[in-house]
C-alpha cells in the first residue's frame, strides 16, 4: 500500500509542480535556519571531555563573612589560597589539581632574545592525567616537582613551534618571568570547549600556551594578575594583589572521584573541613559547600552565550512560520484533489486510506525539503564560521545533527500535513462525484 501511495504522491507532486516546489523550499529554508542554530547550540553545550566528565568534580567552600552585602547563597566559584592549599593537601581524591592562569613574559634562553607575553596555566601534576591531555613529547611533571617548586614547563604545540621550531624540545630551557625553566613535555593541540576548568575568561576561546607548576608559579617575581581575583571586606592592602590574602578567591580546583562512595566521602570531607575552619574562626558561615560534576557545573554557569540562545529561538520561530506556510499550501493542494479523493472514496477507499495517502504525500515533501535543507544548513554554518565570534570554531555539522535535521524535516512536514490530510479525508464523496 505504501508503495502505491508513494507513487500517487509523486504523481500528484509532479502535476502541481509549483505548489510542491514552494512547499519544499519553505521547509528547506526553515530546516536550514533552525538546524544551523541547533548545531551551534548543540556544539556549544557539548561535553568538553566525553568519557571523563562523569568522574570530574568542582568543589567549592564558603570563606565569606556573614554580613557581606549583596552576597548570594552560592559559595564563590574559586578558592582562596589557604583553602586551595588545604584542599590540595587533603589528598583523599584519587586525583586533584589546583590551578589558575595569567600571562607571563617569556624569551628564549639566549642573550638579547626578544620578550613576548604568553598565556599560561599554573597547575599541579595531576592536571594532565585527570583531564586526559595528549602529549607529543616528554610528559607531565611529577608530584615531587610540585613539592620541590621545580622550574619545569609543559608547552603547547603552537608555542613549541614558535620558540623551538616544533621539534622535540624536552630538556631545552627558556626564560619565564626572569627565571630559567626546563621543558618537561610538549602537548598536542588540546582545547576542550567549553573551557570548563576556568570559565572566568569566557567559556569559548583559545587554550593556554604553556603550563607551569602552581607553587613554582607563585614564587615567580610577578604580578600579572591572578585571574578573577575577587576580594571582600576593608583590606588595607587592597590594591596590592596579594595572592595569599585570606579574603581573596582566585584559584580553581578540580578533583577526580571514581565512585559514588568517593563522591559522598569527599562531600563529607568538605563539610568537615568547613566546620573545622569555622571552629578555627576563619569561616564565619555555617558549612556551605558544593561538589558539582563537570556537566552540572557547566549547566550552573550558563555557558551558552545569550545571543546564541536568542538566535536559536528566532530560528525556530522561522521554522514555525515555514510550517504554517506549508499547512496553508497543503490545505490548498489537498482541496484541489477533492474530485480525485471523491472518486477514490466512491470506489471504496476508507477515510483512513485517504488520510494515509495524504500523509505519505506530506512525508515526501518533508524528505525532499530536509534533503534540500541540509546543504542550506551546511552553508549557514559556514557563514557562522566566517563570523568574528569566539564560538565560531564550534559551528560544524556532525553526523548526529544530520540525522536530527532529516528527522526534524520529516516530522515537521508530517505535522504540517496532519490537519490538511484529516480535512481531505472528510471530503464527502457524493458531492465531489456529482460535480465531476
Amino acid at each position, binding site marked *: 500500500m505504501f508503495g502505491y501511495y508513494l507513487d500517487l504522491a509523486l504523481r500528484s507532486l509532479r502535476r502541481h509542480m509549483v*505548489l510542491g516546489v514552494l512547499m519544499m523550499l519553505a521547509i528547506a529554508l526553515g530546516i536550514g535556519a533552525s538546524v544551523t542554530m541547533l548545531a551551534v547550540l548543540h556544539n556549544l553545550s557539548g561535553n568538553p571531555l566525553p568519557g571523563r566528565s562523569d568522574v570530574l568534580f568542582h568543589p567549592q567552600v564558603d570563606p565569606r563573612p556573614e554580613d557581606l552585602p549583596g552576597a548570594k547563597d552560592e559559595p564563590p566559584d574559586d578558592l582562596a589560597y589557604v583553602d586551595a592549599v588545604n584542599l590540595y593537601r587533603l589528598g583523599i581524591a584519587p586525583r586533584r589539581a589546583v590551578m589558575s592562569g595569567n600571562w607571563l613574559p617569556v624569551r628564549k634562553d639566549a642573550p638579547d632574545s626578544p620578550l613576548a607575553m604568553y598565556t599560561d596555566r599554573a597547575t599541579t601534576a595531576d592536571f594532565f592525567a585527570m583531564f586526559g591531555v595528549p602529549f607529543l613529547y616528554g610528559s607531565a611533571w611529577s608530584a615531587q616537582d610540585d613539592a620541590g617548586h621545580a622550574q619545569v614547563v609543559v608547552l603547547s604545540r603552537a608555542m613549541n613551534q614558535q620558540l623551538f621550531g616544533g621539534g622535540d624540545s624536552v630538556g631545552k630551557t627558556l626564560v619565564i618571568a*626572569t627565571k630559567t625553566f626546563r621543558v618537561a613535555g610538549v602537548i598536542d593541540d588540546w582545547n576542550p570547549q567549553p573551557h570548563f576548568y576556568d570559565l572566568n575568561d569566557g567559556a569559548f576561546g583559545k587554550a593556554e600556551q604553556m603550563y607551569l607548576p602552581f607553587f613554582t608559579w607563585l614564587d615567580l617575581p*610577578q604580578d600579572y594578575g591572578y585571574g578573577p581575583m575577587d576580594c571582600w571586606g576593608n583590606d588595607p592592602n587592597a590594591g596590592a594583589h596579594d595572592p595569599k590574602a585570606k579574603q581573596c578567591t582566585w584559584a580553581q580546583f578540580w578533583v577526580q572521584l571514581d565512585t559514588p562512595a568517593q563522591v559522598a566521602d569527599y562531600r563529607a570531607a568538605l563539610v568537615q573541613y568547613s566546620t573545622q575552619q569555622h571552629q578555627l574562626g576563619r569561616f564565619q558561615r555555617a558549612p556551605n559547600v558544593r561538589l558539582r560534576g563537570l556537566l552540572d557545573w557547566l549547566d550552573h554557569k550558563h555557558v551558552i552565550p545569550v*545571543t546564541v540562545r536568542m538566535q536559536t529561538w*528566532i530560528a525556530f520561530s522561522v521554522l514555525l512560520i515555514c510550517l*504554517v506556510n506549508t499547512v*496553508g499550501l497543503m490545505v490548498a493542494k489537498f482541496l*484541489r484533489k477533492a474530485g480525485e479523493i471523491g472518486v477514490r472514496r466512491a470506489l471504496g477507499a476508507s477515510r483512513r486510506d485517504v488520510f494515509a495517502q495524504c500523509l505519505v504525500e506530506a512525508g515526501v515533501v518533508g524528505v525532499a525539503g530536509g534533503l534540500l535543507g541540509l546543504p542550506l544548513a551546511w552553508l549557514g554554518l559556514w557563514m557562522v564560521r566566517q563570523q568574528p565570534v569566539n564560538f565560531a570554531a564550534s559551528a560544524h555539522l556532525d553526523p548526529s545533527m544530520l540525522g536530527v535535521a532529516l528527522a526534524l524535516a520529516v516530522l515537521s512536514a508530517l505535522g504540517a500535513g496532519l490537519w490538511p490530510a484529516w480535512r481531505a479525508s472528510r471530503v464527502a464523496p457524493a458531492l465531489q462525484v456529482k460535480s465531476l
Partner: protein
Amino acid sequence: MRILFQIRPILAALRSHKTAVMLLMLEIALTMAVLGNLVFVVYGTVQRSRVPTGVDESRIGVIQSIGVIGTANSGTIENDLAVLQAVPDVVAATYGGPPLWFTQRDSVFLDPSHGHKLGRVYEFQGSQGLSRTLGARIVHGVDLDDNEIPAVTRYTPTMEIPVLMTKALGQHLFPDGRALGGVIYDSGNNPLRVVGIVDHLRGSITGSPDDDWSIVTEFMYGHQDGGGGFMIRVRDAAQLPEALRAAAAALQKANPGHVSNKTFTMAELRADYFKSDLASGRMLVAILLILLVVTALGVSGLASFWVQQRRRQIGMRRALGATRRDILRYFQAENFLIVSGGVLLGAVFAYALNLFLMRRFELAHLPAHYLLAGAVVLWLLGQLAVLGPALRASAVPPVVATRSV
C-alpha cells in the same frame, strides 16, 4: 475608486476559502512579530556601535608596554612621555589607558564612611596629560593642571585628589546641579574634588546610561618605572598609523626591560569591541531574509493556486466585460486585504513576542513605529509576491468561460 466596489465580492470569495486565508493571515502575523522584534534588536546593535566614547577617537593610539618584574629597566615615566611627545605629529602623550579597554570600575559615595552607595563609575587613572590626550571636552570648570595634580610620590591614603567628572555622573550624584566643586569618595578614603565637568566619557558602551558615569584622575609621575597602557594623540588622524609605529619603537628603545605587547588605534579598538555584536546582527539579518522569502513563497503559492482554481470565473468576468486591469486589481486588492488582516493580528503577536524577549533577554520596549514599518514592508512584500499570479490571472482569455473544465 472601482477597487472599492470590488471589496464586497472579494470578501465573499475569501469566505469560501476561510481555512487557507486564516493560515495565510497567521503566517503574515507571525512574520510581522518576528520581523519587528528582529529589526529592533539589529538596529539597536548598530546604533550602539555608533555611540561615541567622548574622546578624540580618530586621533588616539595606544601602546601596551609591559614591565617585566625583576628586570632592571632604565626607563622612567617622565622620560617615556618626553620620548612619545618627541615623535613627529604627537600633540599629547600619557601613561594610562583608553575607554573600552579594561577601564576600572569602582563604587562611589558622597560620605567618607561609605554608607550610601551612589553607583559604580568608570575610573580613568593615569599620569599627567591623561585628560589632554583623551581630548574629552570640558564644559564647566577647568582641566586638570600639571601644577595641581598630586605627585605619585607624595600620595597618602587620605589626601584630596582633583578629578574631572562627566556631565551625566554630575547630574546623577548632584541633582541640584552643584557637581562642580563637589566632593565624592570611591572605595578608598581619598576625597575626590570635582574641578571640571566633561561632556561625555564612556568607559564601555553597553547601552546603559551609566556607561557615561566616569571620572578622570591624574598623578604626576617622575622617575618611576611603569608598564601598562600608554596613549598618544596626534594632530592629524591620517598620520596616526605612522606616528603610532614610531612612538612604539621609541618607547621600546627607552625601555629595554619592557615587553612591547600591542599597539592599536582607538578605531581598531572600537572595531574589535563591537565585532562580535555586529556579527550576531548579521546572522539575525540573514534569518530575517529567509523569513521574508518564505512568507513571499507562501503568499505567491496560495495566490497561484487560487488563480488556477478560478480560471473559469475569471474567464466569465472577462466575457462579461471586465478588463485585464480589473482582474489584476482584484487579486491585488484581495492580497492587500489578507495582508492587512495579518498585520493587525501581527501587531498583537509582535507585542507578545516583545514581552517574552524583554523578560528573557532584557530587550527594551518595542516602539510603535517599528510595527508601522513592519506593516509597510509586509504590504509591499505581499504585493510583490502576488504580482506574478495576478498577471497570469489577467492573461486568462474570456474564451475559457465557454469551455468546460
